[in-house]
């Protein structure tokens, strides 16, 4: 059952900044949806409209079957009446209140009794393993602890849905990994329908059941992580997802064959295409392998990036330049002649960037 339905959502900030353009999707009960996009893509506007902090210009938001915002009718239920839990990027813990009072705040404004509030705050604090911090002030906590307090405050009122706005971006790299696991674990065990907004693909891949990629206010692709990685619909998604990012080259097509990499294309006989190759799907080797590739090219190492566990090399072959994973013990220095065994090539339309085909060796 869909808990959140977003229907043709449009948001225009006067005079004419289009933050969201015809956005439609739904989130199933208990699903964790990650909204991934670069800054200025409209992802924060989207989550703010769902929370009720912004009004849509057009389109509707439906939570649990209840229309909470309708742009055409010009109505939007205020955030107080939506029963939505939200964690802000800055966590927004009230600095003048102790952790207990921070978590108790949503219950306190509801006018619950003191005993009831204490019972529920302690319960949620135990659940999030912060029950020993209740007497402290937010400034006395570490980033990870503050984030848990913010999560506790969002969950204590049993919200219909949970919204997380870049909740990991203020954490340092080490804490971030455990925080992601923790959030995912809590979300699973509560079965809480959740939307997370992030610009960091690692966040999205770590927690999202499905990922919605958004750019310039438009949905680019909605799918599970494997789909996004293996079948990106266009160059934006292909380039945005994957680390290190996919490398693009514009090549000519003659008689249905792409130049240099010598790959046969079905329909297109003459013209230009853009090919995309992920560094992890292009292997630089010294002796040419006999199988496992869709294309094998010979080139010269231009740049060598040694990362300890892995080594990437930028290899040029004529006008084609690729980044490839070097599977050798020794460092490949500049000027070394190597073969690149390309395992998978994505072919994009050079006019609109849509994916035409993916050719894989396995």
């Amino acid at each position, binding site marked *: 059952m869909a808990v959140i339905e977003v229907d043709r959502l449009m948001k225009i900030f006067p005079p004419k900044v289009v933050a969201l353009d015809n956005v439609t999707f739904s989130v199933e009960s208990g699903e964790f949806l990650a909204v991934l996009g670069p800054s200025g893509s409209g992802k924060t506007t989207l989550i703010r409209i769902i929370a009720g902090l912004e009004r849509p210009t057009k389109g509707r938001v439906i939570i649990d079957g209840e229309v909470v915002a309708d742009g055409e009718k010009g109505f939007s239920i205020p955030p107080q009446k939506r029963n*939505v839990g939200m964690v802000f990027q800055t966590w*927004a813990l*009230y600095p003048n209140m102790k952790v207990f009072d921070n978590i108790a705040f949503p219950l306190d404004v509801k006018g619950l009794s003191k005993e009831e509030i204490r019972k529920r705050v302690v319960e949620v604090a135990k659940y999030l393993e912060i029950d020993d911090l209740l007497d402290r002030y937010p400034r006395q906590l570490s980033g990870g602890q503050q984030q848990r307090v913010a999560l506790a405050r969002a969950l204590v009122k049993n919200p219909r849905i949970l919204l997380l706005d870049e909740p990991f971006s203020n954490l340092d790299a080490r804490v971030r990994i455990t925080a992601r696991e923790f959030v995912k674990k809590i979300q699973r065990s509560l079965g809480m329908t959740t939307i997370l907004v992030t610009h960091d693909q690692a966040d999205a891949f770590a927690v999202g059941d499905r990922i919605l990629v958004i750019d310039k206010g438009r949905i680019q692709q909605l799918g599970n992580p494997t789909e996004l990685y293996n079948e990106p619909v266009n160059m934006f998604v292909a380039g945005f997802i994957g680390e290190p990012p996919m490398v693009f080259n514009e090549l000519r097509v003659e008689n249905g064959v792409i130049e240099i990499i010598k790959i046969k294309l079905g329909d297109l006989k003459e013209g230009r295409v853009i090919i995309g190759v992920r560094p992890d799907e292009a292997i630089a080797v010294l002796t040419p392998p006999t199988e496992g590739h869709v294309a094998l090219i010979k080139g010269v190492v231009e740049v060598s990036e040694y990362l300890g566990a892995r080594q990437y090399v930028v290899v040029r072959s004529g006008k084609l330049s690729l980044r490839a994973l070097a599977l050798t013990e020794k460092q490949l220095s500049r000027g070394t002649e190597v073969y690149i065994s390309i395992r998978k090539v994505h072919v994009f339309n050079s006019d609109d960037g849509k994916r035409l085909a993916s050719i894989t060796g396995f």
Partner: protein
Amino acid sequence: MEFKGLLAIITLSLLSLLWVFPAYTVLIGSLKSLEDVIGSPSFMPPKEVDLSTIVKVLSDMREPLINTLIVTVPVAFLATFVGSLTAYAIYRRFDRVSDTTIVLIAISTYIPYQVLLIPFINIIKGIERYLDITLFDTLPGLALGLATYYTPMASLLMTIFITVIPKDYIESALVDGAGEFKIFRRVVLPLLGPGLVSTFIFILIMTWNNFFIPLILTRGYDKHVALKIFSYVGQSGTLYNEMFAAALIGSIPPLVLFILLGRYFIRGLLALGTGGVR
């Protein structure tokens, strides 16, 4: 470095003299006898310290001091509170209405209040007739006059202070189900602390030192310290030593307040500079 440091100290010392000299004159003037204060240059120390002037003036000043306290403290409280409400409303709306409001408030604080006092008296008389109460020459009337003029100024100050509060706090409280009054009381007011103190001190000093509004709105000299100090200027001559003593006594209460709450005042100003209350 040495020379620059020395130059800075000398410049600062000379500048501070500008402030210290009048205060010094007032202090020693109030310790002189009448002959001494008229007969000797104002910067000369007294021939002999004469505390009788201060003692005499202190008993004269009792009533105006108490009256001024009764009037200015509630006015400063009221102006600061109303100012913070105004500031919150403007902060929350952030549209053409709030933009216009803040411009109007700013304009009203820039207009010299002397220009407005005659129409203001007419309004006060009108209220008196309409409600059948007395405001002219009463402490509530004086308080009304001061509050009318200084509330916009408090609003303007609080509007500046409130911008330091991150919007996330308010939006988070909205999502958590709090209404505007609850957000104001539980989240905004506590975070405004230094700003409230700064505004309160500022308005208290402004109303304490105000001369013209009490002069127009009251009769006699006993309802405000500034009037009482002025009362020592006679038609035939001025009792300089008593006037100096009155000025000294009259300026002590705001000074004490500033010393007690000064660090909050400075914290308020600092919060503006660093852009954060935490």
